[in-house]
């Protein structure tokens, strides 16, 4: 019996090794297209951001790029517009992140109620998310005109006592206007994320809270909020990264103006790298942007980590 097994084993082993090898080869073949594309269109350009930032590469140039050391960075740190773009980007993110996350949570709570028509409201709140940011920006450029709809509504609501400003033409109001519109467009997305989080909370927890005579606020404070911890991290990280990447609204609505009051890091990168074709300088901006995004998302993950 044992002898018979011994005679069988070598045969079986070679069969499984060849099957294993075939499995590995097939798997390599299946993974290769995606891995190759990610290498060519993601890993290489990220590496290039690091490499090109230390050269004098231009988008179209007859001469090959030369190594210039830290020249792009010294130029960058001498550039007042870069500091403005950095400040505007941080300002935008600092307002949009809490505003959009908070409002999205309010919307999610409103449409998580068991009343008639919640599905209708979910759909309506989500409509701007499906609308392209370019279209939204053009639409709101009209709404924000001095004689536009926003100011007419303000004037009607205050019985003509208050005339709204030229929203996008005034350095003081341009960024707030962009912020308001961006939240209007994006809040539905995060409402859905919060909603998904809310629906994972077991109903028994609320029943237990009710038995203890909890008020609505108690229920939110001690059941809903702690149960949303993972969702919270996700919402914060995604809104922050999206806010730092602010570009389309600026490009379409203000081109960074008036007086550079709305220029952002990505807008600066595109302006120098594409409009002025200074690839190396734009790579330096991209590199700083990359470090910024990485740092912020790591810090957020650290701050919202599980505390045991």
């Amino acid at each position: 019996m044992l002898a018979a097994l011994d005679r069988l084993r070598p045969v079986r082993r070679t069969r499984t090794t060849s099957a294993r090898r075939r499995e590995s080869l097939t798997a390599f073949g299946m993974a290769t297209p995606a891995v190759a594309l990610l290498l060519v269109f993601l890993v290489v350009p990220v590496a290039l951001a690091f490499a090109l930032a230390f050269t004098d590469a231009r988008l179209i140039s007859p001469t090959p790029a030369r190594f210039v050391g830290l020249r792009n960075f010294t130029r960058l740190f001498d550039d007042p517009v870069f500091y403005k773009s950095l400040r505007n980007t941080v300002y935008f993110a600092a307002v949009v992140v809490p505003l959009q996350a908070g409002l999205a949570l309010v919307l999610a709570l409103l449409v998580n109620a068991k009343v008639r028509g919640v599905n209708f409201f979910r759909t309506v709140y989500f409509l701007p998310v499906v609308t392209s940011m370019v279209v939204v920006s053009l639409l709101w450029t009209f709404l924000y005109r001095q004689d536009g709809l926003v100011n007419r509504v303000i004037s009607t609501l205050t019985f003509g006592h208050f005339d709204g400003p030229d929203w996008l033409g005034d350095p003081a109001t341009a960024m707030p206007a962009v912020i308001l519109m961006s939240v209007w467009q994006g809040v539905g997305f995060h409402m859905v994320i919060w909603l998904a989080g809310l629906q994972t909370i077991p109903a028994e927890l609320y029943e237990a809270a009710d038995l203890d005579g909890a008020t609505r606020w108690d229920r939110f404070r001690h059941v809903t909020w702690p149960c949303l911890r993972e969702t919270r991290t996700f919402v914060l990280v995604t809104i922050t990264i999206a806010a730092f990447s602010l570009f389309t609204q600026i490009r379409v609505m203000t081109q960074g103006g008036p007086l550079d009051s709305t220029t952002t890091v990505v807008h600066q990168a595109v302006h120098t790298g594409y409009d002025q074709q200074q690839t190396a300088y734009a790579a330096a901006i991209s590199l700083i942007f990359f470090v910024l995004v990485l740092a912020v998302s790591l810090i957020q993950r650290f701050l919202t980590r599980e505390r045991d």
Partner: protein
Amino acid sequence: MAAFLKRLGGQGARIVLALVFVLPLVFMVVSSFKPDDQIFGDLDSLRAFLPLGDVSLDNYTGVFERVPAARFLLNSVLISTITVVLGIIVNSLAAFALSRMRWPGRKLVLTAVIATLIVPFETFALPLVWWVNQLPLLRANGFQLEWTTGWMDTYQVQILPFVANAFSIFFFHQYFRSIPKELDEAAIVDGAGWFTIYRRIVMPLSAPAVATVAILTFLPAWNSYLWPLMVVQSEELRPVMVGISYFFQLNVGWGQIMAYSSMITVPILALFVAFQRAFVSSIASTGVKG
């Protein structure tokens, strides 16, 4: 009584918010049918949101007379569709290998793919412009094929960078893991190869995942602006969003802007309302942690 008032308040808040989200879009569509002087004239009353007065399709015909908008639409349909189809094939194949097969380096590749998730496109878009401008390209010159350099102004430069997607791979991977592995073993005993298992067993069972990836690939492809703005110069290859931003710079009337906007928005909104459940669950799935 208090509870009733509270519910009434909740419903009131829901309705007011619904108006805030929907009225600007209603205004856009309604204005696309009005001449410019009437758009401004109607701003003071609720007529701004109603298709009343001198309503016509003039703005729409005006758009098509001014720019090749039909060509832009065709380009965007083509680019988005190919990106979606290739994306589904390429990413699901990789996810299949990562989730159901055993091979050396599997864990490493999966970790690397997930690590790329936090890198936003904007961080490497500009180096990528320089990079695609260096890539070799086989172009047809009359009846001859010849190698040139630079992918600027092509369809492929608008498609290929967005085919492989870390989130799609990750999402398919999570979904495929939930399909019992015993199915594969049974199929292997019956003599099926891995590719047959992928095509005949796993993919047919993954329709919801395919729908999610299709939606999450289509929307950004249709709405893409930053990338085609930088890599497409010629009008024949221009997608809708770059098309409308240049159209806006021509100083055309607002009615025509609203007509073009409605044209490229309403079909997507209609698709969304029709497949609302699939859309919403797709978005919700982006927040699911593996």
